[in-house]
């Protein structure tokens, strides 16, 4: 299975019935395709709607109905629309149950870095968008990312090297190799890819982690 697809499938298992959920861009968007049968969530789009559905067919679109990526969406029965102040009141005010966000780096203190790529000394692109609000306001923050970068270097770190999006905000880290819970005493390994032993995982992970007594194989189904 393609690793990004596995991550999205695993991340979908974090969602519970009835939750208000905000999915970030990139890998998290794909999570919507894997939400388990019987789990109904209320998806929020930060540009100002609740209960959006799939991309419309050509001819069914509306130039005034788009998601936070500027792309056409449909609205489901029960949808609602609001301005940005309300949308971020929802986010910052603790009314979002779970957010799943892509990350450039995460660390063992529960920090996530996903907004700043240096383009010149002291200058960053692309910007944090709504990510800082989400990590600060959502009740449960899940980071999804590849375990290693293209050069094989761990992205699960002792300490983030890029400017962080939020300090100590993560509850769960999902990579293509493992699932970690972030606890006050550090990371706890909960699930591991079937091809790896714990020692092999340690060898490819910069962060320190403890191993859960309930350690199990990486889950793709509930």
């Amino acid at each position, binding site marked *: 299975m393609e690793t990004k697809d596995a991550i999205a499938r695993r991340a979908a298992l974090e969602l519970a019935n009835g939750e208000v959920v905000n999915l970030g861009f990139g890998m998290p968007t794909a999570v919507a395709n894997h939400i388990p049968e019987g789990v109904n969530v209320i998806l929020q789009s930060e540009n100002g709607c609740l209960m959006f559905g799939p991309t419309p067919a*050509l001819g069914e679109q509306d130039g*005034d109905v788009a998601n936070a990526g500027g792309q056409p969406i449909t609205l489901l029965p029960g949808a609602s629309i609001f301005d940005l102040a309300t949308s971020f009141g929802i986010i910052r005010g603790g009314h979002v149950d779970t957010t799943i966000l892509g990350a450039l780096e995460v660390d063992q203190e529960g920090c996530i870095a996903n907004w700043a790529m240096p383009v010149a000394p002291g200058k960053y*692109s692309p910007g*944090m968008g709504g990510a800082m609000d989400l990590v600060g306001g959502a009740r449960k923050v899940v980071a999804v990312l590849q375990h290693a970068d293209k050069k094989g270097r761990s992205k699960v770190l002792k300490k983030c090297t890029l400017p962080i999006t939020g300090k100590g905000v993560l509850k769960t880290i999902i990579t293509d190799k493992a699932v970690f819970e972030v606890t006050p005493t550090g990371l706890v390994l909960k699930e591991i890819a079937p091809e790896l032993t714990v020692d092999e995982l340690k060898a490819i992970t910069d962060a320190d982690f403890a191993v859960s007594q309930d350690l199990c194989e990486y889950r793709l189904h509930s």
Partner: protein
Amino acid sequence: MDKVRQLDDIIAGIKDGATIMFGGFLGVGSPLKSIEKIVASGVKDLTVVSVVNSYPGGGFDLAPLFKNRQVRKFVTAHTGTCPEAVEAMKAGDLDVDFFPMGTWIEKVRAAGAGLGGVLTPIGLGTLVEDGKQRLEIDGKSYLVEMPLRADYGFIAGYRADTMGNVEYRGVSLNSNPVIATAADFTVAEVNEIVEVGGIDPSRVGTPCLFVDAVVQGHSFAEHQAVFERLWVSTGRLAAPATAA
């Protein structure tokens, strides 16, 4: 109380160095005609205030302003969708002030609502905190974020009456109702201008007192066609089947 104006007359009054706030979110709910005319006017050294930048990939809505180097400073939550702006940043031609999106909108709201600033926990412990006052209240920490206003606010709506009451439509209201409150001169670009009484009061999203001028944007039919072309050309809607 007829506030209907010619867009060209308003644009002609904008001076180099002005601060302009634009409603819209990646082109959706953006005052597209106003932006086009500001680009064509060549006005420069602008401070542009917009919650995000252009439709992803550039070339649409705000992107030409950055391509032409008409913007000196950009106050936003995100600029990565606009290659033209990223290029200007790299070249040192553009300063960008980043704020978390929820903070950005509250700063604008504060300016329009007569508040001296906003207290928010968002951004604590990050670069956003640099140079800002931190307050402890009831054992919790907050950053003090100052109001954000502009000389001009350009908003986009579905319809306006000639007094300036604006009706929004769909998920395109985004930053528009808040921006309307926070500029010295607010221009509402709409698809349709109707007589006073033509909008149900319960459908007014921005009351007329916030609006200084109403201008005709794309007709509703053209507005829909613009987005169909945009979304088809960027692969977001399936292209029409061509006859074999």
